[in-house]
């Protein structure tokens, strides 16, 4: 298999489960071989025949999108479903902290969390609509980005909570003996938490863009 075809197949089957990737690559490689043979029978030289066969394969990104839509439907629905559950859980647990306590009583916690979750989804939809319609960023794939955001919103605060629980005895000691050190320690932890959250957000917005810019466009198609 020549390197141009291998690159094309890698891009067209990128993201598919390994067994499907192998099966589809074999099928598409056979298609290329048939097109190449036909072009050579038509009297084209080897290079021209290769060019025609590659042209017949079409656009790798378009093929990848079609194959993903066909083969990753269940995976995507599962990923989006799990992510939405995680994000909802995060808002139910932490939503209260995002609004000044004066406006929230304990009984309103679930309503507040659910309301903020709805606002969050609406905001995300508007953002996606703006980016795709106004700025033409068609590469923004909501399910993947939502998944990253979900993991960021749930996993990072979880580790923060674990870390806080672990240092609680130390925290008590520091609070009584070295209050300034304790204060600084929490400031550092908050900074790490904020940096991690910003990192997830940056990853959310640039993952697909970088992937497409580097992997799908910069690699030679023929």
């Amino acid at each position, binding site marked *: 298999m020549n390197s141009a075809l291998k690159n094309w197949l890698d891009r067209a089957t990128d993201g598919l489960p390994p067994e499907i990737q192998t099966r589809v690559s074999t099928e598409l490689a*056979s298609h290329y071989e048939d097109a190449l043979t036909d072009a050579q029978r038509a009297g084209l030289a080897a290079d021209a025949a290769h060019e025609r066969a590659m042209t017949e*394969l079409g656009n790798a990104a378009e093929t990848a999108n079609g*194959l993903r839509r*066909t083969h990753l439907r269940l995976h995507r629905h599962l990923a989006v479903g799990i992510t939405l559950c995680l994000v909802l859980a995060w808002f139910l647990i932490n939503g209260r902290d995002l609004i000044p306590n004066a406006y929230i009583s304990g009984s309103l916690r679930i309503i507040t969390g659910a309301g903020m979750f709805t606002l969050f989804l609406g905001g995300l939809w508007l953002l996606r609509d703006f980016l795709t319609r106004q700025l033409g960023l068609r590469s923004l794939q909501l399910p993947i980005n939502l998944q990253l955001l979900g993991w960021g919103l749930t996993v990072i605060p979880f580790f923060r909570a674990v870390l806080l629980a672990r240092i609680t005895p130390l925290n008590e000691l520091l609070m009584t003996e070295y209050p300034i050190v304790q204060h600084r320690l929490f400031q550092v932890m908050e900074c790490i938490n904020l940096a991690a959250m910003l990192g997830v957000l940056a990853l959310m917005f640039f993952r697909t863009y970088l992937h497409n810019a580097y992997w799908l466009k910069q690699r030679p198609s023929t």
Partner: protein
Amino acid sequence: MNFKGSLPLLILHVLQDSPKHGYQIAKEIKQQSRDVLAFREGTLYPALHTLEKQGAIEAHTEQVNGHIRRYYRLTESGRATLAQEIESWNSYAEAVNLVLAKRGGTS
């Protein structure tokens, strides 16, 4: 020209007589339409795999001249789907033609 909505119908139609692999299907559609319909792999293979998942066609693998080929065959369910698709297409085409005829008649 590439009419995405009609691709499943064309695939099922081409597979009526005998099992074929992807390249044969694409080539036959192209030849029978006198090069008007040329489907690229971006739409052809996802459509084939979707029809397979729906049970309208089934696939088997053969080794021919050192190449592994995946042949597709129409199932009984696929034949019923094809009949329905042809009926839908005919009524759609008839409706479009009626509109075009009306426009042609008034101008």
